[in-house]
């Protein structure tokens, strides 16, 4: 197996990531997987007794967000699959990439870096971050924007 894994959340911030993944899929001809990870950390504000019901609802919402991304890929001639996982984004992403023996992981560019903010990741920090992902998943990390990783 092989392919491209693109983790998304939805919303305007995800669009460049989705677009980058679609372009990469068109160039390489590899299968494209959009991944949505359900994370319920925000429930620490409230009761953990709601976990079962809210997990189901969040999965449904994730599937819907993936559907929109798949639709966008289809319009550009790429058939993509949607996958919903639970837990921490990093672990779920690495686990899925290993599972399908992914060639690429497409990640969004951190917002602060994209906007050139003072507290943004430096190119060195991003390179380190990408290296960590690559070592753990065996896939090459590609950021959604060219100038994001300082490459």
């Amino acid at each position, binding site marked *: 197996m092989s392919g491209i894994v693109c983790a998304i959340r939805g919303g305007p911030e995800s669009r460049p990531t989705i677009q980058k993944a679609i372009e990469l899929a068109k160039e390489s001809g590899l299968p494209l997987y959009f991944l949505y990870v*359900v994370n319920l950390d925000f429930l620490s504000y409230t*009761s953990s007794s709601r976990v079962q*019901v809210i997990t189901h609802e969040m999965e449904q919402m994730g599937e819907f967000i993936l559907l929109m991304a798949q639709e966008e890929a289809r319009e550009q001639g790429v058939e993509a699959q949607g996958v919903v996982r639970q837990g921490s984004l990093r672990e779920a992403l690495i686990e899925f990439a290993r599972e399908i023996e992914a060639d690429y992981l497409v990640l969004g560019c951190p917002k602060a870096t994209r906007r050139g903010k003072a507290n943004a990741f430096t190119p060195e920090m991003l390179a380190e971050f990408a290296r960590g992902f690559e070592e753990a998943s065996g896939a090459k990390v590609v950021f959604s924007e060219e100038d994001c990783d300082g490459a």
Partner: protein
Amino acid sequence: MGRERLLSSLLAAALLVAAVALTWPALGGQGVAAPTGPGIVGLVADGHGVPIAGGEVVLYGDGMPLAEAETQQDGRYFLPWPEAASQAKEVALVISRPHFERIEQPLTAEMRAALERGETISVPPVQLEREINAAFWVAAFVFAAVLAAIATERLHNTLAALVGMSVVLFVSYLGPLVHESLFIFDFGDALAYIDWGVIFLVMGMMIVIAVIEQTGLFQWLAFQAYKLSGGRLWLLLPILMLVTGVASAFLDNVTTMLLMTPITVEIAIAVGVNPLAFLMPEVMASNVIGVSTLIGTPTNILIGSYSGITFSDFLINQTPGVLLAFLGLILYSELTYRKELAAGHSASPALLARLGEHARITQPDHLKKAGVIGAGMLLLFVFGEHIHLVPAVTALVGATALLLWIRPDMEEMIEAVDWTTLVFFMGLFVLVGAIQEVGVISVIADFIGRLVGENLLLAMGVLTWMSALLSMVVANIPFTAAMLPVVGYLTLTIPGAESKVLFYCLSVGAAMGGNGTLIGASANLVTAGIAERAGYPISYAYFFKKGFPAVMITVGLALLWLVLKFIVF
């Protein structure tokens, strides 16, 4: 893991029952000794005229203690006249209680003569003045620290309340070894401050909610809202707000928003609108309309239990003002989000089909049964007051009947009860009891009392806006719990306030004020949490920008109604 949670839930339940059993004598088990033989009857109250229980009354004869009695819940005492007292040259009563100045009340010659004739005499009521001591500052500091820990999210609500409760009890028991003024209260007195009516009402409602939330009702209602609007987004907005608001009036706001937010995000994405244009008005509607019923918000449950305001009272006195505020909120939301709504379009048939798939009633049988039981509970909430049926009993009976009828997995149901919230309430009641015991509440009441004098209109305005503004930064449940005795005092002292209007002001301010900031209500935080996971984060600044004007409008309109209802008409 599941087994561990079940065990911890059962342990919490066992602790709850044990605590009720421990508190039982303090709740009413104390008997007042019937006066027999000659004796002295008196009344002890604080500076606000509120009866003082647990006061020590000692009869001294020539400086020696001869007899003693304790004041009961109504502040009264009966002290038998001992024979030895007749031999003493001078006799006097010494009345004391921790956190109050002790007072000496001499007995006149006429009183002594009557007592020696074998009569029971009544001495003039005594008012004890508050003593600001070390315990006062300890309790005040601990309460403020707990509020700060909750507001800054340094500690989970429940853990913060438990830490606060532990500190005041620890200081109460070990502090007097250092200095007697560090005593706050003993364990029995601390438990007596727990309002079991609130605990059991919340617990009963949690069980009912746990059944309803699994039926898919919320998702179905949201989808029906879209269909009803016919794709007109300006119409979809108020329908979604109404659905959320009505659900919040009967269920807790957090559950309502947890279930409404994901389906709302889907609808918004399907129609090409920023989901925040629906989510912000929805969560604000949830905080506004929840105020209309006794069970709509935890703050109303606290207020109802303390003040005796019934379910019907809330419906009659509060609901019209809430509807007025809701209309204002709809207009404000339409205006604020007009550009986002105008940018939307109809959902494609494929997305609509997907939405419809998600928005199905998954357990129709459970929903029907929950509907029948819910309707019965509603009737009992409204009419039960005529037979003195307290809301907690209605909630417990309703929850039990529902469990018997649907026979769910009991393990799941026990886990569905939010024990952490119940423990939070218990810890909070003890903490508020501590600041009440040492006189912090009296100081606040005196301050507000001096500020508003006997002007009811001014008191309504001050209380409502103060509650609204403070609820934006302080968790509104502990704030409301602390304010209840203050409002109780103002209700006794301000002419016209006996209608309990000030409690309605507290209810409006504490709940609607939560719309001002992201941390103002738990429902805001869970909505923001889900929205962020859909790629639409809600920042503190964004929430304040949209929420603060909404608070001004909704609180202003709700207060206007209360003024019209209780002062003008």
